[in-house]
């Protein structure tokens, strides 16, 4: 007589739940700091508070694209197709965060410069190019049948795009125009300690939110794949 199979119990608070809870706490602290603690900027005034949302979202966008490209490189190196979803999900979230970067940036531009977009700014244009490049990733991905070929083509494309990120960051520092503010220079952060602290908390909040979204979406996609596989097997045996 065989011993009964014991299914290991899942922990009540798993990693995605814990990270999401941490993101909620950090977001609440960040919002309190932004609206009730940090003083107005001496030059930009109240509207500078968009900085604590716009810049962390933009930095998180870059990090998501880099994370997707790292997993794409790992897929190409090892041939492990399970890395395909780990490359695709950050790309998807990167475009969501990229859209938010463009929207919050446009609102800030409108209140500061009086225009929604300034085509003379290399920083804005280089970010837009990266964003559009990764939008095309989805056109490529969904034009190929699911499988190894799609995973490999998507990985190559994801890896190519990441090369544009240093160009965009360099453009911010090389442009030297009076429009887009440069806060982080070779001499460190050009802001008061209170503002830097608020920015770091806001960045931690947005980054943790992105990590929680990544974990939840990845879990959903894996569940989707497992269910599709189970349905195929069940239909095959019926």
């Amino acid at each position, binding site marked *: 007589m065989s011993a009964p199979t014991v299914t290991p119990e899942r922990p009540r608070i798993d990693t995605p739940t814990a990270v999401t809870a941490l993101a909620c706490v950090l977001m609440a602290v960040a919002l309190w700091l932004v609206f009730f603690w940090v003083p*107005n900027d001496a030059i930009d*005034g109240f509207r500078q508070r968009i900085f604590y*949302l*716009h810049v962390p*979202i933009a930095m998180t966008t870059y990090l998501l694209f880099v994370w997707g490209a790292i997993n794409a490189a790992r897929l190409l190196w090892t041939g492990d197709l399970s890395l395909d979803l780990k490359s695709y999900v950050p790309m998807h979230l990167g475009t969501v965060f990229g859209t938010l970067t463009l*929207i919050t940036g446009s*609102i800030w531009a409108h209140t500061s410069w009086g225009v929604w977009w300034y085509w003379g700014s290399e920083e804005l244009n280089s970010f837009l190019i990266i964003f559009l490049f990764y939008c095309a990733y989805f056109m490529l991905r969904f034009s190929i049948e699911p499988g190894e070929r799609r995973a490999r083509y998507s990985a190559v494309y994801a890896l190519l795009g990441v090369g544009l990120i240093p160009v965009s960051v360099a453009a911010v520092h090389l442009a030297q125009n009076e429009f887009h503010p440069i806060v982080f220079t070779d001499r460190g952060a050009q802001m008061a300690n209170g503002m830097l602290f608020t920015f770091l908390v806001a960045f931690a909040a947005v980054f943790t939110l992105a990590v929680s979204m990544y974990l939840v979406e990845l879990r*959903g996609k894996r*569940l989707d794949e497992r269910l599709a596989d189970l349905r195929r097997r069940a239909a095959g*045996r019926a």
Partner: protein
Amino acid sequence: MIPATEVRHVAAAYGLVWVAILAYVIILNAKLGRLERQVDELAGMLEQRMAGDE
């Protein structure tokens, strides 16, 4: 005194991000609903097969 236009712009930026997060949760919820229906379908197939075996 903070200019009203600046308040509107800051509120719009933060509000839009909240709406985006909310939309993400709604989409995720719809996806969970679809997965739930698939599980029900699988359970139905399993029940049918068990009934056939008996």
